[in-house]
Structures are given as C-alpha cells and as structure tokens.
C-alpha cells in the first residue's frame, strides 16, 4: 500500500495536498485497492461550497458505490475531467489523479487530519 509523505489524510481515506492557497483532493491507494476496478467517478460542481465531511461526489467500482467526503470545508475551484472519460486513472495512480481542487476556507482545519505516519497506523488498524 502506497502512502505519500507530506499529504493530509482522513479516516474516510481521502487525501489533501496543499498547493499554495489551493489544495488537491483525492482518494488514497488504500481506498482504491479496497474499491477494486473503478468504473465511474461523479465529480462535484465547480464553485460548489462544501462543508467538511459532506459528500462531494461518488465513486463507483465493480464492487460498490461509495460517497467521497470533503476533508476540510472549502470551495471547489476545479475538477479532474479526465476521470469522466477514464475513471480507471484513479486505480493506476490515486495520488497523481486527484478528484477536485479546492480553496480551503480555514487552513487550520488541516490540523484535524492525519499525517502520513498516522494514516499508515490507522490503515493497519482498519485492515
């Protein structure tokens, strides 16, 4: 299982990567593996303001459909449209193929999330 240093992680297996004032949001390798072959990604709408832990999209695999939960409150400023044509990109590299780009309302919220080390321990416990 791949975990990337320097990202923020949620208990729901999303990651956040800070890029200046914006941040990329995606799902982790652990989540992508658990889901199996992904067949559909429902992206949020650009400009949508979404609260932390609220549903920002759905990801569907041959096994199950799951909600994706927003790690921190923020506004969607871009979505990864490549996933509409090829959702399997998430399986091939879940850290490269982000789901949406957001403007974080309050960066202090990131402190609530786990770092790579904490997330690794969390996954071990989950499995």
């Amino acid at each position: 299982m791949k975990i990337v240093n320097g990202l923020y992680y949620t208990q729901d297996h999303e990651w956040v990567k800070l890029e200046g004032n914006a941040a990329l949001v995606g799902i982790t390798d652990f989540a992508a593996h658990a889901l199996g072959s992904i067949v559909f990604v429902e992206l949020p709408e650009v400009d949508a303001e979404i609260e932390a832990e609220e549903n920002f999209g759905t990801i569907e695999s041959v096994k199950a459909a799951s909600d994706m939960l927003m790690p921190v409150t923020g506004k969607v400023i871009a979505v990864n449209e490549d996933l509409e044509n090829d959702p399997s990109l998430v399986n091939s590299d879940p850290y490269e193929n982000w789901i949406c780009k957001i403007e974080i309302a309050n960066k202090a919220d990131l402190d609530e999330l786990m770092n790579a080390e904490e997330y690794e321990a969390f996954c071990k416990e989950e499995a």
Partner: protein
Amino acid sequence: MVKYDQLIFEISKEGRKGYAFPGCKVDNVNLDEMIPSALRRGTEIILPEVSEPQLVRHYTQVSMKNFGVDTGFYPLGSCTMKYNPKINEDMASLPKFSALHPHQEERTVQGALELMHNLSGMLSEIGGMDAFSLQPAAGAQGELAGLMIIKAYHEKRGDFKRTKIIVPDSAHGTNPASAHIAGFDVVEIKSTKDGAIDIENLKAALNDEIAGLMLTNPSTLGLFEKNIVEIAKLVHEAGGQLYYDGANLNAIMGQTRPGDMGFDVVHYNLHKTFTTPHGGGGPGSGPVGVKKHLEPFLPKPVVTKVGDTFTLDNNRPDSIGRLKSFNGNFGILVRAYTYILTMGAEGLSRVSEMAVLNANYIQEKLKAHYTLPVDTICKHEFVLAGLKNELSTCSTLDVAKRLLDHGYHPPTIYFPLIVPNAIMIEPTETESLETLDAFIDVMIQISKEADENPELLKNAPTTTVIRRVDEVMAARSPILKWEKQ
C-alpha cells in the same frame, strides 16, 4: 450447462413464418385515414422471423440456462435462497385463487380475503407485531412503506423536525436508499469490528431530529445483536422509532421476535423466508408489520373482519395511502400461507434451527482455509474475509468464478462493505448434509488451487458458455439490446 448462445434475432431468416393466415376478405383501407401519421411509428419494425419449432427450441434452450434452487446449491448470503416447495404452486394454481378477478365483489371473494386476514395474523404472531399490510410488492417497497409510516406517525404528533434516519454502515444498500426515497436524510453510523451497533456511536447520533433507526437482527455478519434491548431503549428515549429489516428473519423464527426486542415496524421478505419465488422477477412480496400505535398509518385498504364477513376497509384517514394496485401480489400470498400451514409453528422453529446449524457447519469446516474475521457461533449466515493465505494472488472474485466451474452459484461477494474481500455464505435449512459436504470440499479444493495453481482460478470459469466477463466494460459500456447491423 447448455452451450446454446444465440439470440432469437440471430436465427431469424427474412420471410420465414410460423403462421398461415387465410386470404384477406375485407377491403384494404388507407392507413393515413385511420391513424394520423404523427401517431404512427416512423421506422421499420424489426421482429425475428422464425418457424414454430425454431421458436420453441430457442426458448427451451434459453430456459435451460437458468440456475436456481431447483437446479443446484445457491448459498447467496443475505438472500435466503431456500427451496420452494411445489405444494405452494399447487395451491396458488387452484382456479378458486388463480381465476379471481381483483374487481370482483367482496362477497364473492370471501375466501381470498380470509386468507389475507389469516396470513396477516400469522405474520404478526411470528414477529410479535400487532397488524400487517400485505400490499408491498418487494422488500424495498416494504421498507418504503415502513418509513412512510414512521414519518406519518411523527407528523401526526405535530413533530416535523424528525427528518433523519440512522442506518449502520453494515446495512443492506436498500436501507439508506429507501430512507432517501421516503424523504429522510441518512445518518450512517460506524459498526463495531464484529458488525454490531456501536452503542457510543448510536448515542452520539441520537437527537430530536432522528425519526428512527433501521436495523437487521441478526446483523449482516450473521451475528445476533446482543444489545438490542438497550438499543431499543435508547432510540425510544430519544423519541425515535425502531425499524426491523426482515432480511435475516430466517435465523430467528420461533426463537425470538422483533416485536419483543422493541421494534415498532418490520418488513418481511416472503420470497426469502416464506418460500415464494425469488429472482427472475419473483414477483416479490414485502409485507409491512407494525405495533398498535402505528396501525392507523398502514397502507389502505386493510382486510378486516366484521362479524363473519371479511371486507376491505378503506376508511382509514391516517393511512399513508395505497402502495400497490389491488391487494399486493396475491398469488405470492397464497404460496406463503401454504408454507406456514405446511410447516406449522414447530416446523418454522425447526427451520431456523436447521438454517443456523447448516451455516455453523460450513463456517467451522471452512475457517481453516479462509479468513473468518469474527470467530464465533453464527446465525443463519457468516462472512469470510477471503482466502486464508494473505499472500495469495487470487482474489475473492477468482474464488467465486471458480465455483461456477463446479456448478455452484457463488455466495454473495464484497458485501458487507465492512469486511474486506467478503464471501457471505447462507446455506439455508433446505440443504442436505451431502450437499453441504460437497460444497465444503469444493471450497477447500479451490483454496488449495489458489496456492498450487492460481491460473485455474484466474481463468475461471472455463465450463460456462460465457467465460470471465469484463466487469469494467460491463459497467461502463453495457450493450443492453440487440441492434440490427
């Protein structure tokens, strides 16, 4: 397995007919004068052209491709694929039932109404409830009915702020879906490791916006929810109602009752627990039962007995209304009623005992070869977490596909979501020891093949007409109908 794989259109030959009309003895008319062109189909209608024997052979071949409990073992967890006794069919095909018209006057269908009245009473007795509606045509419609009843109950009390339903993360997908359709927001709570309700999580989720909690007992992991009395107390203290999903009723009949556990609303699946046809369109039947305080809200009409006469009572001002045309899937009710009478009270208790024994027998024999996440005595079903050998290159899907080569319908896989690589096995009570042993042997053999010759699993199935399907393509670009080239 029949190797036939043609579509009726593929054997079609232009101009071939299976009929012969006599010559036309009426005048031709201009179609434009009869039906305006705007109302007529603009494109050519494509119908297969085959002879009668071709037609009969085609559909006979196709019918033999069905897999069902009449052809083999079908341990599909959470679905209770038990044998449907043929006496059910005998009773349902009696002309006095099958030839009834739903618009007949009540005085001419007293027997049918009596059957429905009696069946409601029996279902109430089995579940410890006070009244039943037989209208819902499937489990999901039963859930919808139950949730609408809960909503109507709160609103009747003038309480409009209860807009949320709690559903555990191990629940059947229909639970949150039904709650959503009924207009509720869904609050998901995380279960404990052994699939039970986490009391602390429940407490944290309960407040005056909660309309109710949906639960199945035994849980989706096939384990009895031991804290059910406390759960019921907590939900009721918070002003909520407790909903019982009867998917797992086969585990507890004659042993305990949802009504006694504190549930306010239940639905059963007659097509699971009560041996009516399942799959292939059934049709299903999902009666909804309630405690006294919810009875006014049941779908209408309700069959009632006035003196010695049975009547359909439509005068129910608080009813959530009618959910299904006429009186539900009546033929299915006849089958379920037949089953209950055939088994009797003792028989139904024995059903659950044997269903639980069979599940435990397989669980015990397989746990050395597959991962058993919660190693305890189960109820009517159990969930494995894939192959024991964690380093195996074979997946749960590969195991399921390999089972096809041995003539078994695979168990439910990758559900519940709280168990990774889940294999959910429910043998039911109607299988012989020999069948269980044969299945166990095959499962053990497959686990060995996974170590010694994983390609056997990865290439499976090899004996079916259609080999391994591309599930990603099937989900992303399904071809749903034949089109002329």
